[in-house]
């Protein structure tokens, strides 16, 4: 896992992908921060976090599109899959590398919070909730993106399918409002990534919400392993 992790991190920064992702995230977050907090002279940063969360639907697929698909296309998966490492280790290595880059992106919000705290007292609990929520929310999207990437050898297809999937997952709560049948409505609401995330934005660290995201990550990474496994049997 360590070897795959290090290689992936290196490749994010030798190819433009890592820079594009970070630059886009920093630029948009700076814009949201300037327009919502600085200009309005408010210590409330929740609208910035809200916008960033929506932005992830576009940015995460860029980060994850090549994780699995490129290996398949260039046949480098032959050296990974014939090396004495488990499939789980390979997938985990790729996940944590993407997560590291994503964490670098999210870390910038802490800088903004410190800037704001220079002007007035801020509610650190709420900010911490937002940061952790954004991190977990994005991490689960990374897992979804890696899964989508494992389904194809075309990066563009991978990006588009992860965009659609993450968008659908974000909209589950909207859909749940539309259905009348209660059990389904409940199910959709339980699975809604957005509702789970919303809890964090009030500074509430609900263990069940943390577990929800962690298990979503585990489930999608497990699916990815299954895809790799199944490909061998094809």
């Amino acid at each position, binding site marked *: 896992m360590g*070897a795959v992790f*290090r290689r992936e991190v290196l490749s994010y920064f030798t190819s433009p992908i890592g820079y594009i992702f970070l630059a886009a995230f920093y630029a948009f977050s700076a814009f949201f921060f300037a327009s919502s907090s600085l200009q309005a002279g408010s210590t409330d940063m929740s609208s910035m976090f809200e916008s960033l969360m929506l932005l992830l639907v576009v940015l995460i697929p860029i980060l994850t599109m090549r994780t699995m698909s490129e290996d398949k296309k260039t046949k*480098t998966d*032959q050296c*990974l899959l014939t090396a004495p*490492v488990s499939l789980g280790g390979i997938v985990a290595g790729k996940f944590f590398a993407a997560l590291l880059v994503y964490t670098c992106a999210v870390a910038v919000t802490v800088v903004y919070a410190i800037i704001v705290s220079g002007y007035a007292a801020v509610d650190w609990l709420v900010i911490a909730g937002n940061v952790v929520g954004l991190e977990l929310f994005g991490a689960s999207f990374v897992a979804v993106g890696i899964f989508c990437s494992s389904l194809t050898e075309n990066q563009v297809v991978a990006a588009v399918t992860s965009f659609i999937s993450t968008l659908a997952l974000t909209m589950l709560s909207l859909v749940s409002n539309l259905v009348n049948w209660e059990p389904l409505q409940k199910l959709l609401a339980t699975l809604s990534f957005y509702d789970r995330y919303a809890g964090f934005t009030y500074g509430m660290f609900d263990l069940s919400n943390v577990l929800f995201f962690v298990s979503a990550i585990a489930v999608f990474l497990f699916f990815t392993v299954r895809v790799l496994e199944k490909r*061998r049997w094809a």
Partner: protein
Amino acid sequence: MIEVQELTKHYGLKRAVDGISFTANDGEILGFLGPNGAGKSTTMNMLTGYISSTSGKALIDGVDILEDPIKAKKNIGYLPEIPPLYVDMTVKEYLNFIYDLKKCKLPRVSHLNDVCSLVKIDHVYNRVIKNLSKGYRQRVGLAQALVGNPPVLILDEPTVGLDPKQIIEIRTLIKKLGKNHTVILSSHILSEVQAVCDRIVVISEGKIVANATEHDLSDRLTGAHILSAQIEGDYETVAKAVLNIEGVEVCKQINERDGVIEYRIECETGTDIRRELFFAMSKIGCPIMELKNSELSLEEIFIRLTKGSDIKEEQ
């Protein structure tokens, strides 16, 4: 040691590999010979655990590749058909990555240096793989298989894309490695398997057509000892004298140039008529200009063997 038992791979209805069995002993170089699409790469992919077999078993040093893949893979160095290179890395970064990936225990710097000097990539060590020529990429691919010094080497067309000098060097290297490794290599170049391998498995349409030492293989197919001789002199006289030698079955003219006729002389198996031929010719005053064994080349063997299977297939 590699043991393969009734290994089969189906792609949908297509049988890419159809129940092949063979054994490669320790310190043996086994050549896998077959035309395009014979199933060489598919077999190697199954041996290395890249794809799984539809049925059958592959044991690497007694470990089933599907039952305990991690343990089995530890013993294998694999050079696939297309070298699995991360082209955005330098050779150094790449080999270090492979070193980590294989959880290699040998001293890092000196081991990687050894590997690089074996395949002669020292002077491109710090270059980005993307910018290397095809031959050098092939060598990096080979280096990658050698990292960790695994006892079993599986090489899919290792000399593809190399220049003639390198081909000879790599062949020599493989022969040297064969002394203390078990090597399986595939090729469609007959002279290559002939030059390098102890044992040859000929495969066509996913089935084994022949499995023998190179020597046995030609013996089995020709059945008779065949000489090719260039003799100066009148055809009638020479042919008569040759046919008089005991054991000679056929003597026919192949070619003629400036009064020197090339004959193909077929004798009973196990008889050596070269001495008798010399004395017979000197008796009739017809000098032998050239005399050589003309056993069937692997080329011919190969065509015969695969043709045979084609006919079977059609029936």
